[in-house]
């Protein structure tokens, strides 16, 4: 099977599924080339290079579904793919809400979303290695206390996503990304700390200067040396954008259609209600060209769109696929997401909290005694109840300024209270991935320490 035949193969798999008794079918084919180079202490540590492809099929027989996948695209492999999915529809249950999107909901955004950069196709390996090498060198040269490194890496991925269904949808798009990342280790006396920084782009030309990435990483590691474990207390907590982004990850889980219909979210049943401070507006937008969460259609063939999730503190929308929309008596928001196969789950496009007007410095200056969080650890977030308890590291705020590093503490509260208590939103929104948030300040949380 050559690459050019893949869209035909997807359509053919759908056709054969129908011919074999399916009443509906969806076929996804993914193809990708990956490259990864790791540098450590200025030497090449590893290089990995390979390509792969695989196909997935989901079929419906009436209201029952079956799903399968294979990395074997030979005729035998495809026959087994079909047989496997059909056989499973016999063992699943009738699900009244199962089905494909309605035909009129299918489609693809027109125009170029800037998802693919051809400069990565021809980028020479030495250039890739050099980017990682420069990033690490800049970190190592930044300060004598940067005496070790976990390494630096250059990664790239070129991918192609093909989707066809039995309502006549057939689409494909290519995407690419590359990144340079470095994780230096700072050491001073008996204190050893690491941190990292990175740049991510659709193409090589869009990457930030590797040396700048390295210097930023070094600064981040150095400022963590000789941390203090503070006393347990209730104080204002300011989240650096990298840490604030994790709150958006939590919020995504809480507005995820599956969590909503199962009542597994503290935001279930809250549409139209005030759930956050009025400075808070949260948007999911998969239509912004060039950003990492953009796509012309979702994983059910529904066009991507912009959905306002929280508008000035009021919960306006959940993020839905076709199934969860039907369960809730609503319309899909074009957020279907899946790997190769299975029932569609839910994903986000560019999911972000809109920038406010205060600079981060301004936000800090208003805090006489508080905690500036730069890193969060662990999984202590319960979306059902909103209970929030995570390991944290960062810097203590004294008199409006960053005073000394803090680690081995926890921050705890409840997401409901945290959203309502979100009293300052920074102006520094920046997309370093598909989820983004500016500096955020929460009025009060419990810092657990000594």
């Amino acid at each position: 099977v050559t690459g050019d035949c893949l869209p035909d193969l997807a359509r053919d798999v759908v056709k054969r599924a129908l011919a074999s008794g399916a009443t509906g079918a969806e076929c996804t084919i993914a193809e990708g080339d990956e490259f990864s180079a790791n540098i450590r202490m200025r030497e090449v540590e590893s290089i990995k290079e390979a390509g792969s492809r695989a196909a997935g099929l989901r079929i419906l027989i009436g209201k029952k579904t079956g799903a399968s996948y294979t990395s074997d695209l030979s005729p035998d492999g495809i026959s087994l793919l079909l047989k496997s999915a059909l056989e499973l529809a016999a063992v699943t249950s009738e699900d009244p809400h199962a089905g494909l999107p309605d035909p009129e909901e299918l489609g693809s955004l027109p125009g170029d979303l800037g998802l693919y950069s051809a400069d990565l196709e021809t980028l020479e390996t030495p250039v890739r290695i050099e980017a990682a090498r420069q990033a690490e060198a800049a970190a190592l040269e930044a300060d004598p206390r940067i005496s070790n490194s976990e390494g630096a890496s250059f990664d790239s991925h070129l991918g192609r996503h093909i989707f066809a269904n039995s309502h006549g949808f057939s689409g494909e798009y290519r995407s690419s990304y590359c990144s340079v990342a470095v994780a230096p280790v700072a050491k001073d006396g008996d204190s050893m700390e690491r941190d990292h920084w990175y740049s991510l782009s659709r193409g090589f030309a869009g990457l930030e200067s590797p040396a700048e990435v390295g210097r930023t990483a070094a600064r981040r590691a150095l400022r963590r040396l000789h941390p203090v474990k503070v006393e347990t207390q209730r104080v204002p907590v300011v989240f650096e954008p990298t840490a604030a982004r994790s709150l958006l990850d939590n919020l995504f889980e809480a507005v995820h259609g599956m969590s909503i219909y199962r009542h597994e979210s503290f935001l279930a049943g809250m549409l139209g209600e005030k759930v956050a401070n009025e400075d808070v507006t949260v948007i999911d937008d998969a239509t912004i060209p060039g950003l990492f969460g953009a796509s012309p259609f979702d994983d059910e063939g529904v066009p991507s769109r912009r959905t306002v999730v929280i508008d000035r503190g009021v919960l306006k929308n959940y993020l839905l696929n076709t199934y969860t929309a039907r369960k809730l008596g609503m319309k899909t928001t074009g957020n279907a997401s899946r790997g190769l196969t299975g029932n569609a789950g839910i994903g986000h496009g560019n999911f972000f909290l809109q920038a406010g007007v205060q600079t981060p410095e301004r936000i800090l200056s208003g805090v006489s005694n508080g905690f500036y969080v730069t890193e969060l650890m662990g999984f202590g977030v319960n979306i059902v109840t909103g209970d929030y308890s995570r390991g944290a590291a960062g810097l203590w705020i004294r008199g409006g300024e960053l005073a000394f590093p803090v680690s081995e503490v926890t921050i705890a509260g409840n997401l409901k209270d945290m959203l309502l208590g979100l009293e300052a939103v920074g102006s520094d929104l920046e997309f370093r991935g598909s989820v983004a948030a500016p500096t955020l300040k929460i009025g009060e949380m419990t810092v657990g320490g000594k």
Partner: protein
Amino acid sequence: MLFAESVFASRFHITPHDLEAWLSAALSQGGDYADLYFEYLLTSSISIDESIVKSATQGVSMGVGVRVIAGERTGYAYSDDLSPEKIRKAARVAACIAAAPAKVEKVDLQEGVRHNLYPVLLAPTETAFAQRVELVKRADRAARAYDPRVFQVQAFYADNLRHVLVATSDGVLSGDRQPLARLSVSALARREGAPPQSGRSGGGGRVELDYFLTDHPPERFASEAAREAVAMLDAVDAPAGETTVVLGPGWPGILLHEAVGHGLEADFNRKGFSSFTGRIGQKVASELCTVVDDGTIASRRGSLNVDDEGHPTQRNVLIENGILRGYLQDRLSSAVMRAEPTGSGRRESYAHIPMPRMTNTFMLAGESQPEDIIRSVSKGIYCKNFGGGQVDITSGNFVFSASESYLIEDGRLTRPVRNATLIGNGPEALKYVSMVGNDLRLDEGVGICGKEGQSVPVGVGIPTIRIDRMTVGGTA
């Protein structure tokens, strides 16, 4: 399993001669070592939600990874096509990456002896689907029947059968057939006027389907998940700050995985940025603590007959009576550190470079009665079940999140407390272990460990222990 009986010989017609030729191709540009890792993986999964079996999936994936090591440099390429020309191409790509002065003369493969830890005749993946569907249906019914306050139940069953073959330029030829199955149940309970609470349970191993039909039926996991959800309905705020912590037996062994296990993986120590670097022979825990990583326990989720570099797994003592004894090694780190291999080289799949990983990590039993341990605490918390954990190797700080815990007041368990994260520092935390129970228990078999983007199945275990001081991330 003998090579001649493997799927790679029978179905893909690969011969030992082919393997030797591909290894030679991999070393054609030089290098100290090369290996081939073949994988043929069959998977299935079934889920039930709202008493409806909403999905069932089965799949097949296959591929080969070719690795060449020259000094500390690794070249890696893989192919998801097992045709000879694609394998040769992957070998050439890996060879170019790791080009170095030639060192390996000729490869002569020999099949070695190995364990037979999971003598599974018929893997769950090979059984009739209808039988496995029944497991999630039974789990759903049992969780709902447990208590009228249970209103949502999900059960997820997954199994896989992984055929692997490792051939190395050291002459190792080793095949394995690795079955794995697990059943997970989650339940939500609610009471009028209060938010819902959740509970989870699950189990499995490298077992036959019979495992779930006899001693570990779905009802056992279902009622455990439902019990936890109902128990948490009465939860009060967790304490904040340092307190005495008692860990119950079994899954709370995740403490060891995070606090010491990762920090003792040899790659971090070879490179000098683990908080345990250079501490072999030093005291890193109280003398009551002996911690082992054992990949040879029959039928366990974390066990392997051979690691993913073809080396037999073994029982490795990490901490003995409080003294740090050794690291977990893979081929590369053991060669550079001139240490004995420990059978700890693992990888997620053929598309991944192996690295040192844990298998089943646990603390040996002590002499205290569990009830005496609880009775000894005037004020503290007792943690019965946990969610996930994470560690910062360099600073040694680690967290793990309690999903079911109770206040201890005057030596008695009183009220359940809300979910809270516990935080500590690896080389310090176990120094505060003052009592170790005689009730060592391994977890039920659902653990997954992530490292540098690679996930592998693992196990943990611990007896009841008392830790005099640890920070609890509550709000009270």
